[in-house]
């Protein structure tokens, strides 16, 4: 482990952030589930919740939130579940009609589009 990594750390351990949970109660959140804040943060809230609420003023995917908070996806899911239970966020499944199986059905994930993206990436 590099010294820099240690220095960048915070004293919070993940289990104190989740209150000891390692698994979300509900299986609502996918990597690409979109989350929108319903209200502004209130004082005394856990800072991660505050961060989520502020970050999700516009719709954000779970994976984005996790990256923003620098937390593992599973921990982010637990935090999001808390907020969902408190009614502070709403959730939109990007592919509710065919969950998880075919991302291809998403309008922005059309094969043609993907191919173009691939071509574009190769050109870089």
């Amino acid at each position, binding site marked *: 482990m590099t010294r820099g990594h240690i220095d960048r750390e*915070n004293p919070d*351990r993940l289990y104190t952030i989740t209150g000891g949970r*390692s698994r979300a109660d509900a299986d609502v959140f996918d990597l690409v589930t979109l989350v929108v804040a319903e209200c502004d943060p209130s004082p005394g809230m856990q800072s991660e919740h505050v*961060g989520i609420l502020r970050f999700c*003023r516009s719709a954000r995917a779970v994976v984005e939130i996790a990256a923003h908070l620098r937390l593992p996806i599973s921990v982010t899911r637990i935090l999001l579940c808390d907020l969902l239970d408190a009614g502070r966020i*709403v959730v939109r499944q990007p592919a509710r009609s065919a969950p998880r199986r075919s991302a291809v059905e998403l309008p922005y994930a059309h094969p043609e589009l993907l191919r173009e993206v691939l071509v574009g990436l190769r050109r870089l």
Partner: protein
Amino acid sequence: MPRVLEPARGRADTFPAGTSTPAGTSTRRQPVLGANRTVLLSALLVVAVAALCAVATAPSSARVSVGVAVLVGLAAAAVIVVLAIRQADGTARLVERLAALDALTERRAAGLAQLADDTLPKIVAQLRDGVSAEEAMAGGPPPADPAEQRILRTLAEEVGRGERMRAAAMAACANAAGRVQALATSMLADLRDMEDRHSEEVLGDLLRLDHSVSQAGRLADSIAVLTGARSGRRWTKPIVMESILRGALGRISAYQRVRLHSTSTAAVAGYAAEGVMHALAELMDNATSFSPPSEEVHVYVEEVQAGLVVTVEDGGLVMGPAALRRAERAVSAEALDLTTLSGTRLGLAVVGVLARKYGLTVSFRPSSRGGTGVIVIIPRQLITQPRPDGAPLPGAHVTAAPGVPAGGRGGRQAVAERPGEPAPAAPPSRDAAHPAGTPEPLPKRGRGETLAGAARAAALATSPGGPPAGQDGRPAAPAVSPGERFGAFQQSRARARSGETGPTGSAGQQPAGDTDAAGAADAINATDSREAAP
């Protein structure tokens, strides 16, 4: 009788001079003995003359027998006189020896007294300071008596050896603790890395390991603190209070029973953060271990003039007067006495050392919950605002509007209900983060966020309709952001679907317009409190 008086006189004469010898006392006593002898001899002479006279005056018939009787009597008298004189001589010698012994005893007593009251304490003090036995012995005048010298040498060597052993044991402990600390730190970093990499299946196990390693690290920290070594980690940046509390929480076993109530955005200076965290961890550990497993431990933070006050309250046992005294003494200004350590209860001793090191004030009182409350005051010198250019703290944008009760999470409302809580003194840098004329609903720039990023966020929040943030007196309505619109859409869709109640509360069910109003009200509230705070 001279035997009774003589020693007293001898003591009075010889002791202050300190140079008198047995010969001196004998010459002084000689005339007395001589007088005795003269008296006895002259008495014998008188008796002899009288007897001769008696013999001479006796009739001639009886002269022979009288002469024999007188001779016998004289011989007996002479023998008695000689015996008496020898007896007197022996007694005189005994008296002399006694006096000499008395003087010797006096000198020895004086020497011993000096040894006990003066020499030994000095030497022991020197030895405690780490001076070697030889040096300490050479430092002062050696005692005259060879036996005393031997006693002193033996004692000095023993104490010196004990002192060396103590120092070596402490150094070994400190060294071992330091290694365990380093191991724990690197293990924690590794674990954190793994927690990022591995999926949910492994996460639970990793978190358990993480918790165990954190506790082991605290134990090593405790030993390091007690042995006088430096405490575990140095944080290179100020640590916000929430992280301090959670860092402390993560190091105790029953962390799930502790409830944190903090709206403070203050941070503890990096160099003291570890110590404060460790002290709080020990206090929280005490609170959880001395209260029944069904009871929760509550931790409150409030900002006062003197600094930050952290209160740890449990619902367990009330400390008895003796326990309270012990606890107060452990955390008082007295230096740590290792002999007061009991093998199993290190916590308060550790807190005491840390409190002395960082100027924390720790006091105890009965808790309103029925148990014990511990109040820790973190002095103002240790409180800072985190550097804006520090590593971004996720979601450190806490809006510390003290008057607004926390909605939704019941446990956290207690913060606002506490009586007598002054409005947290708004730190100057927070005002600096919001330039004048921008009464925004919420602080836009959190710690670790650049102003540009904040401006972008603000623009994002207000662009679809409202005037740009910073130009308007009224707070820009955040609810018109695309996210909010989507939220409203989602709600209406949810409502349309057969009135399914779901987990979303009443706030979530409001139409978009109501949400706007609520947001604006919140914003006004927040603005008011912010104005009231400084």
